[in-house]
């Protein structure tokens, strides 16, 4: 699969966040914190992570999840994990 741009990953991630939480996709921006700005708890975060794994074909280990504090963290991790 061709590697996706960060913008495409952001859009895909926003759809996943919307599906899990009902938040408007436009509110999912690079500098937003999942917990503080988007009010996403650890279990919703886990669900978002597993859906992102499926959508982008990457593996996001449990230990990595707690480092994904902002939307940018998640997008960069996914971009870097693509093969």
């Amino acid at each position: 699969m061709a590697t996706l741009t960060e913008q495409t990953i952001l859009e895909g991630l926003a759809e996943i966040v919307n599906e899990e939480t009902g938040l408007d996709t436009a509110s999912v921006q690079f500098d937003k914190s999942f917990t503080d700005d988007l009010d996403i708890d650890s279990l919703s975060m886990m669900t978002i992570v597993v859906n992102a794994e499926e959508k982008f074909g990457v593996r996001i280990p449990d230990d990595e999840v707690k480092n994904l504090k902002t939307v940018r963290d998640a997008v960069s991790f996914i971009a870097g994990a693509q093969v």
Partner: protein
Amino acid sequence: MTTIPQQRRTLTTTTGAAYSRIWGVGGYRPERVVTNEEICEHIDSSDQWIRERSGIITRRFAAADETVVDMAAAAANEALRSAGLTASQISTVIVATVTHPYQTPGAAPIVAERIGANAAVAFDISAACAGYCHGIALANDMVRGGSAEFVLVIGVEKLSDFTDKTDRGSAFIFGDGAGASIVGPADVPGIGPTVWGSDGSKWKTISQRNSWIEVRDGDIDWPAITMEGPEVFRWAVTAMAPIAQAALDQAGIKAEDLDAFIPHQANMRIIDALVKKLKLPDHVAVARDIAETGNTSAASIPLATQRMLDSGEAPHGGLALQIGFGAGLVYAAQVVVLP
């Protein structure tokens, strides 16, 4: 050299009923209601956190002198009433539990004797939160294979005896109770193929803290059950939807044909995630007994079934998809016709 005689007789075997179905279901909920406030006397948590992360509002705890056998017998008698059968018609008693506090013997023979199913085949199975669905699979195969006519399947737990009240990661989840079903012969299929299996590489994610040997040889506290919550959550929401879907596919049933979805009552958030992944239409009633019963492991599916039938949420004769999953890790799913 020994030889086999040429005209040796062949073995006679049994043949069973064409199909099986669940004839009746019963439950037993201990009297004492335990609130989140009471749980928070021992852990740093709050009613709000517990509700948001698990959907649990209250759970039941058995009395100190109330045993797994007592609860199992109470649920079994309810199931017999619901099926319109007497104990003497029961040829097999299967008890699914991980909290019968005797390593030996199993609870099933005592339960059989207690309810009057004297001389019944009786044995326990250890498949944790998937125990009831394993029991239904065994019962179905026994009835159809001809080794039993009516099988009593009981899921029962007194988890309060095996929970560390001070463990933040598990103290709020577990509850006590018993649920039972009776599987017997049928002219049309009432239990679909079981999709089941295990992943032993994850055995440590839900387990008794220490083995009995370690307890004997070390300076070790009571070996309560502990859980790696996030890892179990991840496994449940990723691995279990395909298993549930496979149970539907193998039964030749589509999500829209279902009347009810009755997953193990592990955590409301897992239930919600499974409903989404399976794309269940709105008309499918979803079991949410966990709110008032907590996670009762092997008892959760029959207890939730009983509640849905009694309240009219699910129709008698309706189609239900049930899936159990838990310590092992093990899982089992099947589509059943509700009694």
